[in-house]
């Protein structure tokens, strides 16, 4: 397996970045796949991301797991705690009353849903993690970046394609 190299191009707006992506899709270069193209942008741009192909999101499955497991665990915890409590008889109500347990189960339902969603999100983000060495602070301001991982031999060709669309900057990786 050959070591891959990175290149990052900064564009002024989404149209130019989009055209660059279209051009990259049209060519076939050895050691370069569309999966290795990453957009870095200050805001979300769904149309642009769609051009890169299907990149599924799994967060909702985490949520589903959370909202299923949470209330069940919560209900069992609460009800069995009530059943074990030494001071059982209270106010003429059953020891394991339904309405209060419903309230608490509901809160567990939401809480575990939220926690699992956030967990799923961080897993999807692959965070916390290190930034890739090719990062430019301008992508958090107003520029759109295309980060491309490819075989070092085709990097010049890719840079050539990128340069057609008025990038303000193309950053390469220093060989270390």
């Amino acid at each position, binding site marked *: 397996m050959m070591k891959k190299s990175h290149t990052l191009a900064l564009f002024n707006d989404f149209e130019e970045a989009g055209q660059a992506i279209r051009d990259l899709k049209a060519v076939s270069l050895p050691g370069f796949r569309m999966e290795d193209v990453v957009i*870095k942008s*200050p805001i979300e741009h769904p149309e642009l991301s769609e051009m890169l192909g299907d*990149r599924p999101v799994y967060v909702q499955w985490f949520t589903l797991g959370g909202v299923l497991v949470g209330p069940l665990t919560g209900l069992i915890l609460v009800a069995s705690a009530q059943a074990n409590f030494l001071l059982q008889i209270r106010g003429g109500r059953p020891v394991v009353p339904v309405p209060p347990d419903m309230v608490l189960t509901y*809160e567990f339902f939401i*809480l575990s849903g939220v926690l699992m969603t*956030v967990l799923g999100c961080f897993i999807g983000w692959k965070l916390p993690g290190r930034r890739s060495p090719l990062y430019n*602070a301008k992508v958090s301001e107003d520029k759109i970046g295309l980060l491309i991982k490819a075989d070092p031999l085709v990097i010049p060709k890719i840079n050539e394609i990128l340069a057609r669309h008025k990038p303000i900057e193309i950053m390469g990786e220093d060989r270390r």
Partner: protein
Amino acid sequence: MSHTVDLHTPEDKDIHIERKFVPKPLDIDREVSWAKINKDVLRSLERPRPMFWVIFVAALALFSFGVYCEIYQYQNGMGAADLNNPQVWGLYIATFIFWIGMGHSGTLLSALLHIIHADWRKPIYRYSEAMTTFSLLTAALFVLIHLGRIWEFYYVVAYPNERWVWPNFSSPLVWDATAIGTYLTSSLLFLYTGMVPDLAICRDNARGVRKKLYTFLSMGWQGTDRQWANFRVTYMTLACLLMPLAVSVHSIVSTDFAVSQNPGWHITSFPPYFVLGALYSGCAVIITLFIVLRYVFRFEEYMTMPILNKLIKMTFAIAMVWNYLNLIEYATVWYGDNEVAKAQFIYKITGTYAPVFWGMVLCSTVLPFALLIKFVRTHMPTLLVVSLLLNLGMWLERVQIITPTFAHSQYPWTWTANWFPSWVQWGIVAGSFGWFTMLFMLYCKIFPAISMYEVKEMVHDQSKMLKARGQ
């Protein structure tokens, strides 16, 4: 007979010409460049107007006095608050509900407006969510403060122990603790998740200690397409989970009263009434903070008048629903003709604490109509005073729920007319306002109070829309 009738009279044509498309004032100027948004918002973290420090120091002073009062009460016992046998809760629980209520609008409105894609939420949702978080923290303080043995507060928490002793899950106070805990956790996560892209911006621009803080908190966000896609799904899911949660939390707070047997509390319409009251006071606070932040951090370009106008419209609508629920509560008590409940109601509006009730009517029922006047909506100092008065009204509402019921409940022997909170109680209540303001101001100084990436989205969408219309 001719079938071709010209419906367009000459007059009509003239009108048609006059009805040329007049663009409504935009929520935000589309010429604002993304770089400028970054610059303006980041500047708020550096140099606010001097008023910032005035507010901060005043809040700190109030908070310190509150701490002094709490220490005094801790040392001497709850008697220092001049509570007594029927009046066991006093201002503490009333203020607790007030803060919980305030904490509702932020997250609830942010989630709701996000779900229905109301773009104008974007510049104001961040600080509203922060307001939620900090008012929940303040409310949690009151849960502790009102306890007779604050040092044993952990008994309320369900923690495993060798004696098999658990909290009483049937108690509405335990539901409260669970609900508030859930809400605080979820709101914090919602706030934090929505802030990660902005923290990355801060990280890219900060130096020194702050850089370390933002680097840690942004966790290496780079704005990749994969991250954005995950972010979009997560944020929408969280919003959908938070909406019902927020409604449930204040319903549960209302069960503290609705589940009990006391006249004036044992009312079926309490849960929706509390939820609406919460939204109402929260909206009023959002307006207050809007004006304060707009001035202190020079956010005139982002917190614009069209947005404020929308906010006021919403507040007015919510105030009207609240009025309706208020009215329906009294109407059902009256029509239900339960002697005890009716006597309690009559006492509430005519007895010793009637000024509290009528103060509420004045501030929360009548005053919102002032929002119909254009001058009130556009003149900042007037609007600030009105929004503060709306809040005073909502605080009085909570007091008039609690105090008259204690003073005039079922048992005639405990009917009291001369109860008044002591300086310790007032001090702690005032201190809570200091605590909230202090935390909120600190937050806005350390974290961006306006969501930068979403304002950029707003500008982007707006110019795209206008381009499509050919302007």
